[in-house]
């Protein structure tokens, strides 16, 4: 008997659906729908109360219209009404509508929650299931608040039906995902674990999903699940295929449950208990053995289900990474799948092998499949599979096979899908660098890369090759020769022109001895590409030309002619024009010595993290990239880089560690201000050229005056958020964002102060070109002297550096200095401005005095302009001790027994500045009687501006 009898149901709905289907055009369909919407609206609004059936029918129509792609803005209330119906069909449509259409922050949620509450309490399993489904599907916070405590008890209650238990488990899982904080852990957790022993396999499956999620969050609480899961798994895999009856799927016993159990076990390390461990090993062996048995059915479902379990078992083996025999067996099994006729299996085998390649036990075995994988790269018809093959080649690459793999990837690149080219380029670049023994090979590889897939070679890649050439003397001559040859191709990629221009500009002299590559030939070759290039490349070439003038005085005249031509000097692009003018002028006025200093060869680059690697990681997302720097390398690759050390280098020979800076090759040391052959950035091209961004403090060169306008700090919003918190205290965190935390410790004596600023790098990446400056407005400059010690330009990931600021108060002031911070993080320049909490009250010295003295002086300061008074509402609860602490923190002495009213506070102190001293008396009167708590603050000082400022500062504190 068919479970759904097609005849039943709503006739009106069926007619409406077939009407829609008969519509000949989109317009006709919309017309029909609008007619129906109008009809439903009038029915819902009409005076006549609708019966349950009609309501159900119309709600169902609305649902259908919504699924056709039309937005529905009414009918929610009717759907909610259906929830409270006693009839299953009406209730069910109501819940369906709500699950599909109700926004989780809808204002109907309260009504819906009421209906759910009734259904959960109804003890009718069908209704309970509908309610649980609704909670799981909507999963809003309000629902979590309402039901998170109730569902665990439904789940573990002895008398709950199996199907309800299943729903309750998944419902709880969903709430745990969306609002974990609301799901209370408690005694039910232990009982949930025991659901793994339940008779009903559906319940076990749902419970396993729940436990897996919970165990990921708090592994220790669910440790007991390991032994239960292993026992359950063992019973399943050793059962005869018919034992589990309905849960046997195409002759495989409970495949979904097995998969879930294996996933759960992947939350934990291998079991410590030896017996348990051997039982698990036995299970895994049985699963591996079954793969070798002849199939019990030829249906694809049979092999699918069997292999789903097998792949999960292999994942667990890889996760444990502790049993060499199992690992090798797993690897061999995957090897078989690599050649399986089913594409799905080949895909999954490549994927699993990728993780297997990073295990030290199986890395060698994985490597034996290299030919198959390369073949897959060449012959697979499916881009998903080829992508996996690329990943696996990357993961299995080591010194022994690097040349082969890089060559294969390069040749594949010529025909690769556009969607994965960039990734392949990055991978080739990384492998070529990482495993280069011979750097001529590296240079060849990268030039090939540019030739084959120039468009996909990102800046990071070509910056990197330049860095390496500059850091390695032994390869410079070869690089110059190779780029020179490569540039002779009639059409070459612009990236090649960039690399060529840079390298010839630096090292063209190394090949100038050969008449075939004489200076003039080199220059003409570069200049022949000039007009085909974009502006940034042309700018780079201009810098190469000025370098030529230094390297080869014999071509000076030729180059000057080029620079002098109208197309350069009057170029519409301001950057090109400026370079041409300045380079021409430089070449005319500077003596040979100055030229040689200014245009000296680039210094070696500091060792930094490879931004290519960073870029690849970003592209793939963390975790998806097999970490090729793991322990295994130390096992098979202990000789990895020892060969490199043969060539003595100024820079570290290990280029794996030689990791790239942010996004352009710029040496950190910048004493010869214009060494750079000019790598163009789009942001601050000119200042970059002069290297001013790197270390502004090092700009003590005569050329700065000629060329530079100091890089005007971009206008940044000044952070004042925490400023007022520092009025009554001296230490704390003044600024924090995702990258940086700034803490302060300050001390003041008389008119002098000292602030220690602590900059903490919250990321794992180095901050580069870190610099700070303190800015004051013109008026403040005359009132306050701030002297900042220099700060280290590099802050390592997780590290903290300290800077000292010395402060002198010259006269009273109101404004505050601003601390500007600049650094590079991940290629972008960060600008932060923080208002420094240097306030007038910091220069207080407390003064103790008697009641008599106080009132005498109070009267002396009686002139109207000397007193400032403010009445304000309390922002915080009135607490005498807190208030006292704040007044003391403000810097004055607290005078007890002066004021006749003991509830009032009285203080006195002297502000010290270089010019004068200003005495100050204050009185704070809390009014606790009034409805709204108020304060009155009165200040009298000998100077009106001081009174005003102090009053402003202090009144914000209560």
């Amino acid at each position, binding site marked *: 008997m068919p479970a759904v009898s097609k005849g039943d149901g709503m006739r009106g709905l069926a007619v409406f659906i077939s009407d829609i289907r008969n519509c000949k055009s989109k317009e006709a369909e919309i017309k029909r729908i609008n007619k129906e919407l109008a009809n439903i609206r009038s029915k819902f609004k009409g005076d006549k109360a609708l019966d349950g059936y009609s309501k159900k029918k119309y709600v169902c129509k609305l649902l259908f219209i919504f699924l056709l792609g039309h937005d529905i803005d009414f009918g929610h209330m009717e759907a909610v009404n259906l929830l409270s119906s006693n009839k299953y069909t009406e209730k069910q449509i109501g819940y369906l509508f709500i699950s599909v259409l109700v926004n989780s922050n809808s204002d109907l949620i309260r009504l819906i929650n009421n209906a759910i509450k009734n259904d959960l309490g109804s003890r009718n399993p069908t209704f309970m299931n509908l309610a649980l489904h609704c909670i799981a599907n909507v999963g809003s916070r309000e629902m979590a608040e309402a039901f998170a405590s109730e569902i665990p008890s439904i789940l573990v209650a002895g008398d709950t039906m199996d199907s309800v238990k299943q729903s309750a488990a998944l419902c709880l899982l969903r709430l745990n995902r969306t609002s974990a904080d609301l799901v209370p852990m408690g005694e039910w957790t232990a009982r949930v674990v025991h659901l793994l022993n339940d008779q009903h396999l559906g319940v076990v499956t749902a419970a396993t999903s729940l436990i897996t999620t919970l165990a990921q969050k708090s592994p220790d609480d669910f440790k007991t699940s390991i032994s239960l899961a292993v026992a359950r798994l063992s019973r399943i895999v050793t059962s005869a295929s018919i034992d589990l009856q309905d849960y046997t799927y195409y002759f495989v016993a409970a495949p979904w449950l097995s998969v879930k159990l294996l996933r759960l076990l992947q939350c934990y390390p291998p079991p410590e208990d030896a017996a348990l461990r051997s039982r698990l090993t036995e299970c895994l062996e049985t699963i591996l053995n079954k793969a070798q048995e002849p199939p019990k059915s030829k249906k694809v479902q049979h092999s699918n289900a069997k292999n789903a379990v097998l792949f999960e078992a292999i994942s667990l083996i890889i996760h444990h990474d502790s049993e060499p025999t199992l690992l090798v067996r797993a690897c061999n099994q995957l090897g078989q799948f690599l050649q399986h006729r089913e594409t*799905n299996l080949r895909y999954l085998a490549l994927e699993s092998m990728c993780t297997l390649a990073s295990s030290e036990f199986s890395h060698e075995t994985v490597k034996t499949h290299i030919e198959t994988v390369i073949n897959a790269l060449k012959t697979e018809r499916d881009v*998903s599979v080829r992508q996996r093959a690329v990943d696996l080649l990357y993961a299995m690459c080591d010194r022994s096979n690097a040349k082969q793999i890089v060559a294969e990837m390069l040749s594949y690149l010529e025909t690769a899908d556009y969607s994965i080219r960039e990734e392949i380029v990055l991978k080739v670049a990384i492998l070529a660098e990482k495993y280069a023994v011979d750097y001529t090979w590296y240079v060849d590889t990268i030039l090939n890369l540019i030739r084959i897939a120039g468009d996909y070679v990102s800046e990071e890649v070509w910056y990197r090759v330049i860095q390496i050439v500059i850091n390695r003397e032994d390869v410079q001559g070869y690089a110059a020769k190779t780029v020179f040859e490569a540039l002779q191709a009639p059409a070459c990629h612009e990236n090649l022109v960039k690399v060529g221009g840079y390298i010839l500009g630096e090292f063209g002299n190394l090949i100038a001895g050969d008449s075939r590559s004489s200076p003039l030939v080199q220059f003409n070759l570069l200049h022949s590409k000039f007009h085909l290039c974009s502006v940034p490349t042309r700018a780079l070439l201009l810098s190469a030309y000025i370098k030529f003038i230094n390297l080869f005085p014999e071509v000076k005249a030729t180059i000057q002619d080029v620079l002098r031509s109208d197309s350069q000097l009057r170029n519409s692009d301001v950057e090109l024009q400026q370079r041409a003018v300045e380079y021409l002028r430089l070449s005319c006025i500077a003596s040979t010595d100055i030229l040689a200093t200014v245009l000296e060869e680039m210094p070696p680059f500091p060792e930094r993290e490879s931004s290519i690697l960073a870029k690849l990681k970003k592209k793939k*997302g963390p975790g998806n990239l097999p970490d090729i720097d793991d322990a295994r390398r130390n096992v098979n690759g202990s000789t990895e880089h020892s060969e490199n050390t043969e060539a003595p280098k100024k820079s570290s020979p290990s280029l794996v560690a030689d990791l790239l800076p942010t996004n352009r090759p710029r040496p950190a040391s910048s004493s010869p201000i214009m060494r750079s052959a000019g790598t163009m950035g789009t942001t601050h091209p000119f200042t970059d050229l002069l290297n001013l961004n790197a270390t502004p403090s090092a700009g003590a060169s005569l050329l700065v005056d000629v060329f530079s306008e100091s890089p005007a700090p971009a206008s940044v919003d000044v952070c004042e958020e925490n400023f007022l918190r520092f009025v009554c205290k001296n230490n704390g965190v003044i600024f924090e964002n995702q990258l940086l935390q700034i803490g302060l410790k300050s001390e003041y004596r008389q008119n002098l102060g000292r602030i220690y600023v602590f900059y903490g790098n919250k990321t794992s990446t180095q901050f580069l070109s870190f610099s700070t400056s303190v800015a004051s407005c013109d008026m403040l400059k005359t009132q306050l002297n701030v002297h900042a010690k220099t700060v280290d330009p590099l802050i390592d990931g997780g590290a903290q550096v300290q800077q000292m600021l010395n402060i002198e108060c010259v006269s009273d002031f109101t404004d505050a200095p601003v601390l500007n911070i600049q650094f590079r993080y991940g290629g972008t320049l960060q600008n932060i401005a923080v208002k420094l909490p240097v306030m007038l009250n910091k220069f207080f010295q407390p003064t103790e005095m008697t009641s008599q003295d106080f009132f005498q002086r109070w009267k002396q300061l009686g002139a109207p302009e000397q007193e400032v008074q403010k009445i304000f509402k309390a922002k915080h609860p009135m607490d005498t001790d807190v208030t006292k602490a704040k007044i003391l923190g403000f810097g004055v002495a607290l005078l007890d027994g002066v004021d006749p009213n003991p509830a009032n506070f009285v203080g006195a102190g002297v502000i010290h500045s270089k010019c004068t001293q200003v005495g100050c008396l204050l009185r704070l009167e809390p009014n606790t009687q009034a409805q709204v708590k108020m304060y009155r603050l009165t200040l009298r000082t000998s100077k009106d501006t001081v009174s005003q400022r102090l009053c402003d500062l202090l009144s914000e504190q209560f």
Partner: protein
Amino acid sequence: MIKAILIFNNHGKPRLRTNNTLFTLFSLSNNLFFSHFLPETFHLVSKRDENVCNFLEGGMLIGGSDYKLIYRHYATLYFVFCVDSSESELGILDLIQVFVETLDKCFENVCELDLIFHVDKVHNILAEMVMGGMVLETNMNEIITQVDAQNKMEKSEAGIAGAPARAVSAVKNMNLPEMPRNINIGDISIKVPNLPSFK
């Protein structure tokens, strides 16, 4: 976790979609669903050969590289599940198969029209299998028992209101110009991707 379930036909017309979980964006805004998610998914899936693998790496559209589309093609319909890395790919393929077999049993030779005229029923059946993005039940007999029980309730409630049923079947027979009648899930002519030599 199963983030979304989608059924569309060979022309990219949607026949079912869940409002699932992280895709509230799509479930609530028809615009996004119809302007981006559906056409792109259709584009990705429909241009693939029958012989390639059933897994597709997710683009930014479905939430980045952690997500995959796992799909199967039966006659006129594509069944697409969007899942994260915590699901077994082959397990999901089998789940689609169970879903289709269940539909076939419930509707007796299920065809696309059944999905059109009985959206609510299809949702019901799916709800017995997947809940809040997690697999609830995989045992077909259990699922059918539940659906059967609901059906009985419906019948007992429907009474007279259910009478004009034949009209529906009449309409159904009217509207079958070019469409293959059945998905044919029976043992004889099951159409399974990736198994060309299957007899």
